[in-house]
């Protein structure tokens, strides 16, 4: 007590983040379920589009399909990410410690971002290999990494807040989806637009890419700040 010296917020953030990473890399619960789910969604998309004629039109829907994959996969992970905290009352154990609640939020959001990023690193190239026979993308296709990063940051941030809110509710899986999709809609719209622009290239790239990214970045900043500030209220 008297001998304890309150560590810095950064040190506490590192401790909490390492806890989440260690736990997940040990059990691989989230990563395996998200990875398998992403593969299954890709297969289902493949079947759904199997009668479509190859051509440029596919490029205009492929951005949206990619984001459907990301959103559904992240929902699965977000639901699981908080189950560790509610099991055995672990969240209360953390809240007993002298630490800013915003640090708990940032650590959990970062770990969710890391897990989503790992799944995307595996799933997005597979998605592309699977669908490359439908249409050849524009030379700017590699730029889809930018909306993917911005979208994932927003999804991890707002998703962490919402999964904390719904963790103690009945039917939390449905509740999270019901709250998550409408709230994340502006980000989703911006990211689909930027991704499609990068894949199609040409005029669309010039007109929509930068604007959409600016919208996504603005959403990220506002929602991350709001989530950080609100987290204390939510967990209390």
């Amino acid at each position, binding site marked *: 007590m008297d001998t304890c010296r309150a560590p810095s917020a950064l040190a506490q953030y590192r401790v909490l983040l390492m806890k989440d990473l260690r736990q997940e890399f040990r059990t691989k619960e989230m990563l395996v379920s998200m990875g398998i789910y992403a593969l299954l969604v890709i297969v289902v998309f493949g079947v759904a589009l199997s009668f479509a004629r190859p051509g440029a039109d596919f490029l205009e829907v492929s951005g949206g399909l990619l984001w459907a994959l990301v959103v559904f996969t992240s929902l699965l992970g977000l639901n699981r990410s908080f189950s560790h905290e509610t099991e055995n009352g672990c969240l209360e154990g953390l809240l*007993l*410690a*002298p630490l800013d609640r915003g640090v708990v939020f940032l650590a959990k959001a970062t770990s969710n971002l890391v897990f989503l990023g790992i799944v995307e690193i595996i799933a997005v190239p597979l998605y592309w290999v699977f669908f490359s026979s439908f249409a050849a993308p524009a030379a700017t296709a590699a730029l889809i990494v930018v909306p993917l990063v911005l979208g994932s940051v927003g999804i991890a941030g707002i998703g962490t807040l919402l999964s904390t809110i719904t963790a103690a509710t009945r039917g939390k899986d449905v509740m999270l989806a019901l709250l998550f999709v409408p709230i994340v809609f502006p980000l989703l719209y911006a990211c689909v637009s930027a991704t499609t622009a990068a894949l199609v290239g040409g005029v669309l790239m010039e007109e929509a890419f930068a604007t959409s990214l600016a919208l996504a970045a603005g959403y990220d900043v506002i929602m991350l700040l709001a989530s950080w500030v609100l987290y204390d209220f939510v967990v209390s």
Partner: protein
Amino acid sequence: MSAAPGTPAVPAIRCEGLTKAFGTRKAVDDLTFELPQGAFLSVFGPNGAGKTTLLRLLATLARPSAGSVAVNGVDLKEEPDRARASIGLISHNAMLYPDLTAEENLLLYARLYGVPEPERRVVELLDAVGLKHRRLDRVRTFSRGMTQRVSIARALVNDPAVVLLDEPYSGLDPHAIDIFDDLIGRVRDGRTFVMVSHDLEKGFRLADHVLVMARGRAVSFGSKDALDPEEFRALYRSTVGSGVA
């Protein structure tokens, strides 16, 4: 395990008009009492009397709707983080991550509290609860009694001056209860305890102060020495018999 007593002149716990409302229902209603340093308070009452809510208020896990509460002179509303550094909570929830080892769990909490030499402290605590040899095993592989022992170590990792116990015997077999009692006895010196329990005999035996609650209010509070055990049992029976608050 060293004790970490508070300053004797300052009450370990002081509640003044403490109230916690959920909507229109008052779970804790205008509670006022002072508990001296080093005391052991047992809180009794029927289901819904507000015992656990009181403990959550003391643990800073809930915020008072009205009134004030201070631990070792530190107001929990004004300086919650400072107060948290001197509080430990043992409940029927172990607050341990099942897929981390006992040592990893305790190190996590030790580092969050800023305990100096956390590795040494964790080994010392695991030794004290008789689980040093299992420190590298995942908590998931532990029995309920063993998990509760690690939970005690977790609650003491910051060397708290005030230890809160929420139904700590829940789900423990008689052997585990004996081990638990022995551990509490060993760490009791200098610390203040507040225990919520339905076990009247055990709660009364361990306590030097008792609080009986019903409908969120204090029906009786005082030093055990000032109470006649038979009168207390009659009061308890009539309070519990009055049903859920």
